């Protein structure tokens, strides 16, 4: 099993969610996060004084899937979250050792 963490633009969350349900991904965890990469910050103007916002708001989507579906899911997220402009975000993929469904005690792929 693999965990896919995608940090995306907040307004792209709906598109990503739809793309994932279309390929049968039935659950995900979403967190509001802040950070910056190449995009750096942006500036706001209050009464003519510039305020530079270093940490930009992003949304982190976490999905755990069987290893053989990783490429398909990464592709779906990439397509759905892309605007082509700087700041579209990143996707990280990592191994997951074990999953337990708390209600039933089912484990691993049965629990996904």
């Amino acid at each position, binding site marked *: 099993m693999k965990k896919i963490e995608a940090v995306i633009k907040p307004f792209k969350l709906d598109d990503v969610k739809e793309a994932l349900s279309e390929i049968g991904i039935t659950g995900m965890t979403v967190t509001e996060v802040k950070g910056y990469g190449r995009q750096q910050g942006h500036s706001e*103007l*209050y009464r*003519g*004084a510039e305020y530079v916002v270093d940490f930009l708001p992003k949304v982190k989507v976490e999905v755990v899937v069987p290893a053989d579906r990783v490429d398909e899911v990464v592709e779906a997220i990439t397509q759905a979250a892309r605007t082509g402009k700087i700041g579209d975000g990143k996707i990280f993929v990592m191994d997951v050792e074990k999953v337990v469904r708390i209600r039933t005690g089912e484990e691993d792929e049965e629990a996904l």
Partner: protein
Amino acid sequence: MKIVAADNVFIFVSTAFVLLMSVPALAIFYAGLTKVKSMLNTIVMVMVAFGVVSLLWLMYGYSLTFSEGNGFIGDLSYLFLHGILPSDPAPAAPNLYHYLFIFFQMTFAAIAVALMAGAFVERMKFVSWIVVCIAWATLVYFPVAHWIWGGGWLSQLGTLDFAGGLTIHETSGLGALVGALLLGRRKDAMMLPSSLPLTAIGTGLLWFGWFGFNGGSALAMSAQAVSAAFVTTIAAIVGGLVWMGLEWIKFKKPTSLGLFTGIIAGLATITPASGFVDIGGGILIGIVGALVCFWAVVYLKNRFKYDDSLDVFGVHGVGGMVGALMLGFLASPDIADTKGLLYGGGFGQLWSELVGIVVVGLYTVIVSYGIFKVVDLWLGLRVSKDDEQEGLDETIHGEKAYVKEY
């Protein structure tokens, strides 16, 4: 002159309007511009100033301001409102009940002091603020209001100030500037508005309250009262649009805060002139008020780096002075018995206004400096660096504006 029922109705309602300007209009206008972690403290600073000064007004403020005394200060004949009955006519306005006149003027004294809070947000010790409120009302507001409104020496010189451009906006603006200089810059000296929609509501409520502030200053339900409220609204509209336009040209973005700030600049600038100028004068005052205040807020402040956090000096202080000066040019004989320079009245009124502006300014700066200096040595003006960074809501009040459940 007899008690006039219609006038009393109007001033009674105006009193409530002016109360609304402090509680909650000014409080939430300022709170929306404060960082989230200190917004309650900002609200409390305004409301506590309103409360403390109102009590002083009943104890000795009214007496020092409006009893005869001498040219500089009133006497103590109305101490604790001694000897005044609710049905008595007011000596300063015999068409009104004395109680109503005292009540109405109380809301003016209170907002004058509360206005200063905007320059000190996010860093001032609460107890020191209360002491400053008491000292400043006593030593600055009561005497200056006596000079101009209480029959003191400036009123004998002919200095006019319809609703408080000098007595309220100039004094609080300069007091704010002096206090901000002695308090020093915040560690994080930038404006990070916690809620601009809150500031939008504050702007609207202030504007609404200004009907009572400027209209009510006619002290009667007269044509002058209607005209004053009308030109006040015109100046607010023009001020807001001009300020937003200036930002659009200069910074490429028309900001909401620019619109709100311009509206307040228009309102503050028209205040001293509101009962003396016509609609055309109101438009002109809106334009000039926005231009000059914009310059003070965007250029003057950044040039000299004082942390007048929410621009009390830049908007109210500068606006009040500009408006009083413009009254010397634009006072129209169609509105009241005063002719400005442009209506063939010569330099007389302009000169009286100029003397008023300079003397009130010098006096306010010197006395405010003394007050803030003494309070700083005695109690300290500033909270600790850690408290400032953590936010005053938590460290002073033990509360948060928005509580998360877990």
